[in-house]
């Protein structure tokens, strides 16, 4: 593992014009990812985590407006010309989506889709591409890979389709893999298998990986660093251990507390987060989480806290009264 910064997201903001006014999906996000590391981005739906990943891939909707810089391997993806961007995507930058049914082409066989990707990006000949495809399918744990090449996506189960999608993403040995809710559509048992597979391939290929999810449980044992997003902003960012052990942001705490745990007794009232995220077309003046925060004081509604580092530079959070510090006013 090196200290080379592979991806650097610098002050990225994404605006979407809607009939109800401007929607600020991503609001000034700064993130860095070193080569070979994994980053988890966690947040509720609508918090901008998917838009952020789209901004990295330069796959935003046409009418979206992007500001800031997305530096990948020293190149700014925002200003990169189309042809070089296209070469980069698929080659060095790969993505796995939530729903493998819609991300695979239903009228082409698994083989065609894999072989085409290999031929296009690695310029392999037919026989080599086919050999490579079989290896890849075997690597992602698909039994009888030779036979699968002639099958269509609908002939496979959801878990198998997601494995195929991962095989396609891995086919060109990318430096960065973005997994956007890779297991949300899958069963728990399959979820564990897919996450294990991603972790194994990530380690083996020394690629960097971003896992986007709404489930803190998914990122807990499988990432080096986690960024929690809320209403378009990163509200807490820390090495995974620190985030779970010494969380500072009340939102992170609430999010973790709201998950039903297997060791809590039945019929325990869950500490739910009341309310719902603010309307993204109407940004709040103060902290976006203040209306739902049980520790919020008057000042939280007036001024927006900036993302700042505290005891260690790696642990940043955006809160005036962080948990477990002297600033915390007893609620």
């Amino acid at each position: 593992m090196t200290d080379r910064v592979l991806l650097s997201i610098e002050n990225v903001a994404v605006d979407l014009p809607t009939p109800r006014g401007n929607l600020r999906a991503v609001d000034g996000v700064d993130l860095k990812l070193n080569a070979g590391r994994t980053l988890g981005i966690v947040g509720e739906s609508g918090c901008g985590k998917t838009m952020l990943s789209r901004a990295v891939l330069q796959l935003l909707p046409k009418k979206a407006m992007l500001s800031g810089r997305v530096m990948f391997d020293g190149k700014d993806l925002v200003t990169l010309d189309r042809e070089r961007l296209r070469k980069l995507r698929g080659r060095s930058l790969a993505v796995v989506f939530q729903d493998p049914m819609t991300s695979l082409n239903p009228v082409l066989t698994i083989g065609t889709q894999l072989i085409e990707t290999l031929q296009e990006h690695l310029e392999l000949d037919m026989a080599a591409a086919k050999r490579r495809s079989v290896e890849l399918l075997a690597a992602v744990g698909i039994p009888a890979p030779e036979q699968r090449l002639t099958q269509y996506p609908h002939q496979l189960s959801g878990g198998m389709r997601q494995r195929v999608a991962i095989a396609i993403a891995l086919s060109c040995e990318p430096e960065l893999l973005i997994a956007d809710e890779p297991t949300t559509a899958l069963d728990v048992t399959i979820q564990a298998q897919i996450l294990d597979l991603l972790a194994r391939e990530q380690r083996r290929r020394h690629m960097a990986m971003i896992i986007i999810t709404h489930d803190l449980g998914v990122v807990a044992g499988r990432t080096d660093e986690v960024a929690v997003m809320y209403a378009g902003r990163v509200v807490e960012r820390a090495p995974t251990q620190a985030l779970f052990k010494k969380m500072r942001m009340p939102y992170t705490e609430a999010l973790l507390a709201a998950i039903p745990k297997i060791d809590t007794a039945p019929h325990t009232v869950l500490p739910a987060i009341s309310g719902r995220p603010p309307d993204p077309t109407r940004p709040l003046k103060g902290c976006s989480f203040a209306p739902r925060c049980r520790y919020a004081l008057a000042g939280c509604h007036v001024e927006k806290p900036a993302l700042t580092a505290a005891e260690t530079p790696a642990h940043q959070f955006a809160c005036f009264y962080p948990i477990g510090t002297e600033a915390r006013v007893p609620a």
Partner: protein
Amino acid sequence: MATLELDLAEEAVSAPVRKGRRFGMLFWAAIGWIVLVCALAIFAGVLPIPDPTAMDMLERRAPYSWEHWLGTDGLGRDEVSRLIYGARISLVVGLCAPMIGLTVGGALGMLAGYFRGRFETLTVGGTDVLLAFPPLILVLAIIAFLGQSIFNLTCILGVLGIPAFMRVARATTLTLSRREFVIAAQALGASHSRILLRELLPNVILPLFAFFLLGVAVTIVVEGSLSFLGLGVPPPISSWGSMIGEGRESLEVAPRLAFLPAVAMFLTVLAFNLVGDTLRAITDPRQGAL
């Protein structure tokens, strides 16, 4: 309740904004044209225009004049009043025939899509048979057998439209009946007729209506083509199609005689298509949500 998650009051203010922006100028122009044509057709009897069948052999193919705004045709009949009375025929046939398709085809399609099974097989099979007949031959045969009249023409075109409406209704119903709100209604103990009328119909009717408007446009053209071939309304009644047919004989001396009804038909068909397309695009109530 500690878990209230409502801040709707604020949202309510912003909701109406999107209404006006959805339709463009073109849509309103199309609506305007349809209203104008309909109004002229409805009030043709009371408008101060000459009898469309009154011939004036001295004024054959007269050019534009104060008396005849758009001149006269080959038999000296006033072109304006023939166009207006022609609109009557085109619109009556154009609206009534798809109406037959809409009601019969829509009902059959919904029943087939909801109940499935043997009824669906029969309905789909029946409409396939209907579709397999060459339509022109069918029209020819039936008109030869029943006689040439507006009523017969409307009925035939209506019946020919049933399969298309049936398919649209059935496809929409099929996808809808798998949706959970229909199962929810069944679980509530709702009767089949209640599910069909209250749950499914409001969702099926809009795409059907959009298709109906396209059907109107198609029927106007088909009626025109049949009249052009002399299979449409019996003379001396004018329809746009028969006017084009008659105008064909004098294309070199007075091209406007074919051109004017063609323009009228073109604009009307275009207007119906435009309205139909716009309505179909906004059929989904959730499209305006974000």
